[in-house]
């Protein structure tokens, strides 16, 4: 394609050589817009690979600052970034890798009031959130707006990942209709996480996003890929769409984003707001 610069032809040459990508595919990547929720353990490899791949616009949602305990796995940030907003440190890293990429920082916490507006600007969404309220909020918003979503979770040596394409398979609520009671699922903060596991699972998310944009291969729709880093094995579990799902089912009962606190109150008064699976 004649509108690539010499530098772009060289930078993206290993993509362009791929039969399934070519110049047309690379142009699609450059024109695409991806939102990454969370610039942490999962968001780091996703952000790095999407920026390197030339995804033209990458939104980053994170309200936290870089903490020393993050650096064992959150490879977007460096020791020099301690105390800085993760959004800004991540933007610097990603734009440093590839000046073709425009990183849009959303330095906020997603809630029922802003989630639809934020998600609306993007073609594909990546859930790298460290807490259940955000996870349900992002799932619901993506289903409501028909946006493809890569979902993943990691803990200790394990991880799981799936791709949600509304209308083509199940959503996160089909799998887990309600958040678990606080404290039932331990967080990385309590249980630990091998940093490289975040890299493996996040890299799978990045590959899924690129496939979705390019329209190639078989995304993990209706499949949960479960990774065990101690055994070093993957298994794939079929997950059906639930026709009774409250958000993507045949008669949805959730038609507007709801906050976790409200969601829990509706279901019997769980008050706390656990930080789960960072």
């Amino acid at each position, binding site marked *: 394609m*004649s509108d690539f610069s010499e530098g772009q032809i060289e930078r993206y040459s290993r993509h362009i050589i791929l039969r*399934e990508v070519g110049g047309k595919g690379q142009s699609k990547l450059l024109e695409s817009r991806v939102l990454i929720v969370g610039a942490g353990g999962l968001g780091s490899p996703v952000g790095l690979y999407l920026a390197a791949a030339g995804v033209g616009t990458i939104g980053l949602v994170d309200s936290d600052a870089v903490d020393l305990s993050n650096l064992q796995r959150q490879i977007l940030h460096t020791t020099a970034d301690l105390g800085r907003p993760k959004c800004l440190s991540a933007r610097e890293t990603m734009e440093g890798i590839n000046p073709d990429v425009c990183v849009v920082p959303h330095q906020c916490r997603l809630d029922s009031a802003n989630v639809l507006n934020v998600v609306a600007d993007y073609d594909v969404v990546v859930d790298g959130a460290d807490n259940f309220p955000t996870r349900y909020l992002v799932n619901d918003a993506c289903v409501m707006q028909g946006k493809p979503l890569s979902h993943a979770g990691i803990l200790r040596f394990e991880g799981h990942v799936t791709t949600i394409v509304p209308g083509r398979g199940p959503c996160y609520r089909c799998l887990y209709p309600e958040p678990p009671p606080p404290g039932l699922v331990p967080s990385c903060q309590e249980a630990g996480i091998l940093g490289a596991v975040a890299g493996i699972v996040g890299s799978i998310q990045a590959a899924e996003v690129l496939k979705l944009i390019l329209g190639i291969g078989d995304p993990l729709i209706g499949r949960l890929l479960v990774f065990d880093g101690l055994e070093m094995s993957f298994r794939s579990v079929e997950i059906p769409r639930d026709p009774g799902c409250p958000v993507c089912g045949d008669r949805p009962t959730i038609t507007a984003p709801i906050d976790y606190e409200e969601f829990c109150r509706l279901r019997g008064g769980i008050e706390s707001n656990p930080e789960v699976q960072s």
Partner: protein
Amino acid sequence: MTERAPECCLDLRGTPCPLNWVKTKLRLEEMEPGRRIEVIVDQGNPERNVPRSAKMEGHRIVHAISQNGAVRICIERAEESAP
């Protein structure tokens, strides 16, 4: 069938592998199936790699002619360049 003249010519002398093929491929993507392009590449690796890559994507090598230390390769674009 009579030999159709190539639609365009890319002088890729001095362009190393695989960039010579990348530039050829980008041009092929913009062409109609059945149309031809002539590329001039260096002897050695480029004269082997560029036709091999073109054939792997289903394009047809019409001819390759050595000339003054370079090779002129005529490639006919395949019906489908991407699966």
